[in-house]
């Protein structure tokens, strides 16, 4: 059992890392990745929502009729999201201002409902929690990677700390919406190349 829990946890990082493998949840991954700080904030918000929703869905999985399943799951997710929204507003207000509309939009992040539907609905609470944690952290990692590229090259800082000499002009394209798409596409491509190399070596 313990091994299973560890396995469900770790798959979220490489084998099934959601935004990069399945192109799920790419909307927030693109929108809030101009700065590492906001990426971290968004990532942890999603981790919290995923754990809470996976746990609750797993608890109620036997009493919910099939026809209203989606409505019930989405209510649970929305509740988790509003809790995050309120707590963030109360204690991390600057972050709340930066993330803005993307906090309520966690509700419709495909990863969250996807995990509820595909995993938590069929598994006991322990596994569901570890799945949620793993997937959420995997999402955070991908977000931070993209944000690092964009922040370092785009504005010459990382988490607000300057990494280039002060006269670095900044690659503004990366901070704009089109730049996000391009960086994400290139990241996916390099991920493909690496995976294929590994496969070839194992074969």
């Amino acid at each position, binding site marked *: 059992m313990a091994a299973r829990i560890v396995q469900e946890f770790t798959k979220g990082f490489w084998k099934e890392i959601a935004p990069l493998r399945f192109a799920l949840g790419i909307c927030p991954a693109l929108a809030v990745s101009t700065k590492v700080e906001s990426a971290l904030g968004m990532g942890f918000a999603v981790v919290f929502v995923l754990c809470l929703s996976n746990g609750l869905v797993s608890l*109620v999985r036997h*009493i*919910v*009729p099939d*026809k*209203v399943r989606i*409505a*019930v799951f989405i*209510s*649970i997710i*929305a*509740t988790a999201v*509003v*809790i995050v929204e*309120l*707590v963030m*507003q*109360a*204690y991390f*207000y*600057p972050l709340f*201002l930066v993330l803005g509309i993307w906090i309520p939009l966690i509700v419709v992040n495909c990863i969250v409902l996807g995990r509820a539907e595909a995993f938590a609905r069929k598994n006991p609470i322990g596994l569901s929690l570890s799945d949620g944690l793993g997937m959420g952290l995997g999402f955070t990692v991908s977000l931070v990677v993209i944000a690092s590229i964009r922040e370092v090259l785009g504005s010459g800082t990382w988490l607000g700390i300057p990494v280039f000499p002060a006269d670095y002009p900044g690659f503004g394209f990366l901070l704009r919406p089109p730049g996000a798409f391009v960086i994400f596409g290139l990241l996916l491509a390099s991920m493909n190349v690496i995976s294929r190399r590994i496969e070839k070596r194992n074969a």
Partner: protein
Amino acid sequence: MTLRELIRMIVVLTCVTVVCAGSLAAVRLVTREQIDYQQIKFIKEPALKKILTDYENDPVADRIQIETGKDARGRPVYATLFPAKKGGAVVTVVLEASAPGYGGPIGVMVAIDPKNDRLRGIAVTTQSETPGLGTKIIDDPSFGAQFAGKPLSANFQLASAGGDIQAISGATVSSNGVSQAVIRAVGLYQSVKPELKF
């Protein structure tokens, strides 16, 4: 689908939503104070810091809200006052008011010395005036400085309207917006003054 299934569907959905709403309302109740504090702190504090210099407390945490009337939907409207204290005594009260300018409403914070009924200073918080012209209300410190030290009984209208304030040339409408906002703030202060106990 039988009637039983239908009813079960509705009951489950309703129960879930009720429980969700209940727990959210509870969380809201717990965090409400903190959220209000944060919102006001992040929006108002920079302006507060500009006009308040010598104080020891957190004016945002010590803010006073006084009901001034009801809005169109019948909900109460509050005026928020920020008291700055030194040595336990209130030395300055800050409040905000706004009036229409050239490009939109101009928000002005006014610092009042409650003991002597004098203005300590003003600061523009929100504005959308023409850059380079209307924005002189912020960029030209001598304009705002006219208000400092005047008693509350002074005439804060522009000189062209028979008052004591010299408008910035080329930005009369914006200047008028500021002076109207100050007049409103002072009026607000006078109306709630009886309820203040320092």
